[in-house]
């Protein structure tokens, strides 16, 4: 089993099975460009730095990729039929503990940076699910966003959106 070492922004090393990294478009490109797949290249001696991903986030990304090992990798842009995307139970449980904190958002940004399309899709869908059926004040309360509107501004927004209700 070929292991490739990923180095997080806080300089933690993560040896990861080569096969898993096929899920990341960014890392896959780096592997090809660095010829890490060549038989005469010592992949273990050439760590891949990921300066935009912190160690704790990268650990979560790897955990997710391990669970989804062998899943078909999406091609192209995010062109799914969004109405049909369902976050599987395992992923829901995986995202939930950190959902309203910075960790989940950092995971989502990392998925975007690392070009892991399936993770990005599910992660975004999970975030959007937290907004569903909620009013603005309810979303603010759940996410701990302070209300910066004056009552007059809130009334103005409500009036502006009235026609769509």
């Amino acid at each position, binding site marked *: 089993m070929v292991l490739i070492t990923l180095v997080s922004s806080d300089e933690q090393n993560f040896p990861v099975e080569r096969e898993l990294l096929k899920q990341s478009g960014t890392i896959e490109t780096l592997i090809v460009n660095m010829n890490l797949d060549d038989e005469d290249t010592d992949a273990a001696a050439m760590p891949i730095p990921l300066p935009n991903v912190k160690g704790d986030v990268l650990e979560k990304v790897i955990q997710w990729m391990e669970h989804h090992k062998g899943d078909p990798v999406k091609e192209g*842009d*995010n*062109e*799914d*039929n*969004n*109405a049909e*995307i369902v976050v599987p139970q395992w992923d829901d449980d995986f995202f939930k503990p950190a959902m309203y*904190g*910075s960790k989940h*958002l*950092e995971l*989502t*940004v990392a998925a*975007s940076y690392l070009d892991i399309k399936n993770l*990005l*899709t599910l992660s*975004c*869908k999970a*975030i*959007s699910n937290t*907004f*569903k*059926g*909620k*009013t*603005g004040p*309810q*979303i*603010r309360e759940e*996410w*701990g*966003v*302070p209300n*910066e*509107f004056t009552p007059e501004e*809130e009334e103005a*927004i*409500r009036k502006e*959106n009235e*026609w*769509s*209700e």
Partner: protein
Amino acid sequence: MNFLARLGFVKPRKRYEELPDYVLRIIISYLNRETLLSLMATSNVMRKRIQSFRITTPPRIIRHFTVSIRQRDLILLTERKLVILRTSFICLVGNPKHIKGDSIQEIIEKIMRNSKMDLENVRFLCDTKPFRFQFGTEEVDRKRILMILESICGNC
């Protein structure tokens, strides 16, 4: 940011408002119009960011939206008008209060004028998919819209 965070004792929480545009676009593409309006009503930052998508969104992104929001509504809010894209059909909907009693051509002209949507953009939307347009409760087929657009263009 709370008091302790301001003093540097607690790291402020990263919020959905701080997500990069690309990620935010994906998230809002999953929302129906009511939820999108709710999200926009959470803060000025969100409001301005989502509003800005319409203005700065290049055609490729519009296509991305129209392709990726099958059976969904997406509202791209302009200053005064809503442009709702659907994948089964595209709705260009003005505030019903303002468009009531207008002809389709007048509505199109108003929407284009008020939303600062140029003809090329409208035409692009027409060409993207065999969509239909809906104005208020009236559905109009694509050919008719294109004919109207041509006549508007001819008058420019």
